């Protein structure tokens, strides 16, 4: 008996063999089908375990020991975690990480969204602008941080020279703690907005123009179209880009480290920089890994909340 395509799929999912026309189907037990599937995915699962779980477990072990990168050292239980949580530098780094992440995510999103909307309009040389606007994302971070250092670090760098010329005096962009934090955040937004622009452009491209035409016929203005059509229709992509950018920002080591090294006086030290410095400069492996674990837990929590938001959007 011949089967339809849909039936074939159903049978295949049930672990039942499908015969061709004129042949009798071979029935197999569901258990055997499940076993076959398990065996087929086992290599991938094992590889993932080796690549991800092993370092995670090894890191967890390191975080409850007082050792080095070579030796595990004596077991200290949760002492590394309590030490880290009692350290004011950890909380200072947490605050900066929050600020850096919030500015990085929403700053780059606002600029990315604005540019994506602008680039939807037909302007001469639009593709050229698109390519140029991608430059901050494409250029290696070592190159762009060097360029920014040249732009702001020394008293005779272009930006300090400009601020003097405008009568604002000597602006110590990387030497003053507040200005350094602002500079690092602005640098992050500059590096990240092309990614947001790309994500938003892709989402906007999938929005049917007919929806806007219908809204126009109903008398909706530009603002109403933006808030009631554009934003809701791209919300799924927006949440995904927020999740990704949150992870990028919290885990962003080079942007900060190459520009300020976490200074001056820890004013731009984020948690990832603190973890690195604790492990590789202070050689305190246990506490450094403990910081990294606390970060991981926080990131998983934030990502879960945002992911649930995506599901709500899908359901709606």
């Amino acid at each position, binding site marked *: 008996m011949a089967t339809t395509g849909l039936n074939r799929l159903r049978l295949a999912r049930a672990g039942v063999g499908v015969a061709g026309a004129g042949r009798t189907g071979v029935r197999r037990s569901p258990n055997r089908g499940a076993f076959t599937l398990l065996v087929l995915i*086992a290599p991938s699962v094992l590889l993932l375990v080796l690549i991800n779980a092993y370092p995670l477990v090894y890191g967890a072990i390191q975080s409850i020991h007082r050792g080095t990168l*070579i030796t595990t050292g004596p077991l200290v239980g949760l002492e590394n975690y309590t030490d880290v949580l009692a350290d004011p530098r950890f909380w200072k780094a947490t605050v900066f990480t929050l600020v850096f992440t919030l500015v990085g995510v929403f700053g780059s999103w606002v600029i990315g969204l604005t540019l994506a909307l602008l680039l939807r309009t037909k302007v001469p040389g639009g593709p050229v602008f698109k390519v140029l606007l991608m430059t901050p994302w494409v250029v290696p971070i070592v190159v762009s941080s060097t360029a920014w250092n040249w732009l702001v*670090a020394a008293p005779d760098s272009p930006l300090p020279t400009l601020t003097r010329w405008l009568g604002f005096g000597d602006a110590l*962009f990387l030497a003053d703690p507040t200005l350094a934090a602002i500079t690092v955040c602005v640098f992050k937004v500059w590096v990240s907005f092309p990614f947001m622009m790309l994500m938003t452009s892709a989402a906007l491209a999938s929005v049917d123009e007919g929806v806007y035409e219908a809204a126009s016929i109903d008398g909706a203005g530009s603002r109403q179209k933006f808030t009631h059509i554009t934003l809701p229709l791209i919300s799924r992509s927006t949440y995904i880009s927020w999740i990704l950018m949150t992870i990028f920002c919290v885990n962003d080591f080079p942007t900060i480290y190459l520009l300020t090294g976490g200074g001056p*006086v*820890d004013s731009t030290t984020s948690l990832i920089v603190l973890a690195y410095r604790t492990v590789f400069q202070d050689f305190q492996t246990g506490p450094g890994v403990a910081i990294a674990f606390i970060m991981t837990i926080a990131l998983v929590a934030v990502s879960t909340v945002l992911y649930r938001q995506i599901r709500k959007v899908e359901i709606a």
Partner: protein
Amino acid sequence: MSTAKSGGVTRRGFLGLAGAALAAPALAACNVSGNSGTSNAAGGGGTLKFWDMPWGQPAYNDAGKKLVEAYAPSGELPKASYQVIQWNNFYQTFSSAIASGSGPAVSSGAGFQAFQFAEQGAIAYADNVIEALKKDGTYDDFLPNVLDSMKTSAGYVAVPWQLDMRILWYNKAILDQAGLKLPTTWDELHTTGVALRKLGISGFAIGSGAGNPMGSHVMVAMMINNGGGLFDPDGKPDCVTDVNVEAIEFLLELVNEGIIDKGSVSFTIDNVSGLWNTGKAAIGFYSPGLTGAAPKTAANLVVADPLTGPRGGKGAVNFVNNLMMYKDTPSQQGSEEFLQYYLRNLHTYWDNKVASSIPVLKSIADSPAFSADPNNTKIVKEWQPISKNYAATGSTLFAGLAAVDGGQALSQFTQTILRGGTDARSALTTLQKGIEAVVQ
């Protein structure tokens, strides 16, 4: 019996292939340590890996490669291979390689690296090499106090090969043009700094920005200059002393009066080099390689006399860069023979003018190739004898110093001072606590 086939490959065959594909990387991973163990057991087999850092221009590493490739071992001992390890994440590179059994047999590296790895049981002590150097006379060729700094209660952790120091440099043309005398005391340095500030030129070039440890080195150098240091003679942290407070108060005065640029806190090494190169720095501490870092003004850059502190003392900070051997080697005898070969041929670097630091051997320091530059001669004759290592006021180096040099406590202290608006004693008290936390 299953008859399902796909392109001639049975399901069982496919699963077998998948299993093999999975097993291959796992077995390869296991084999990393397996190789090491086999080569160790073989004694003379394999190749002896020498890891070197970029100690100067690329020409340095080119010369190093040639030197290592020219090594002809005796008998069945292994030949050597050369590999450059970048400074970025170098400790991570060494640690992970050593932990996985794929590390070097011999290497150069950071000043306190040998002490760290010795503490972790990875270093092969160099006592046999030292004995051999005594026999052939090389031992007596070392500059004073250099070799002893590598000695621990368990033996020599490494053998020195070059010296890094923080030297006071000045731009002669700028001082001459401004009619200023070269300062020889702290007071004179202050007076000259005030005059230079009026000209818009730095009278104490320094930096403590991203990846720049030189600012911290200068802090310690000034403490040593005044008879202090970070540790007491027994090696315990001892930052809050009157001499240290006096040294840091002097630096704070330079900051508060604008002699030290307030932007210094964020200056990278490139920023500081740029100040020297563009004639915007007239006086300041730098490594012996300043002329290479500031080629435009190199002809005017001169090593100054060591400053006399307010208590009449002189002093500077040095870093003994060394060559270390590791236990994981195809042949310990091979490592030792290679190290001796390398030490006997060190002069190649200075003969070819590719080294940017000070040699540890008198024969090289006295050689025409090195001593032709009067700056070099002055460093060896006047600065090296008064210089002390990071353990000052103690003298014995130890593993914990790695967490001090480049660690967060000292870099934060340096940045606090360079920002000004603090007092020396409280800043040193915070430094003391920070060092105590990382030095066990």
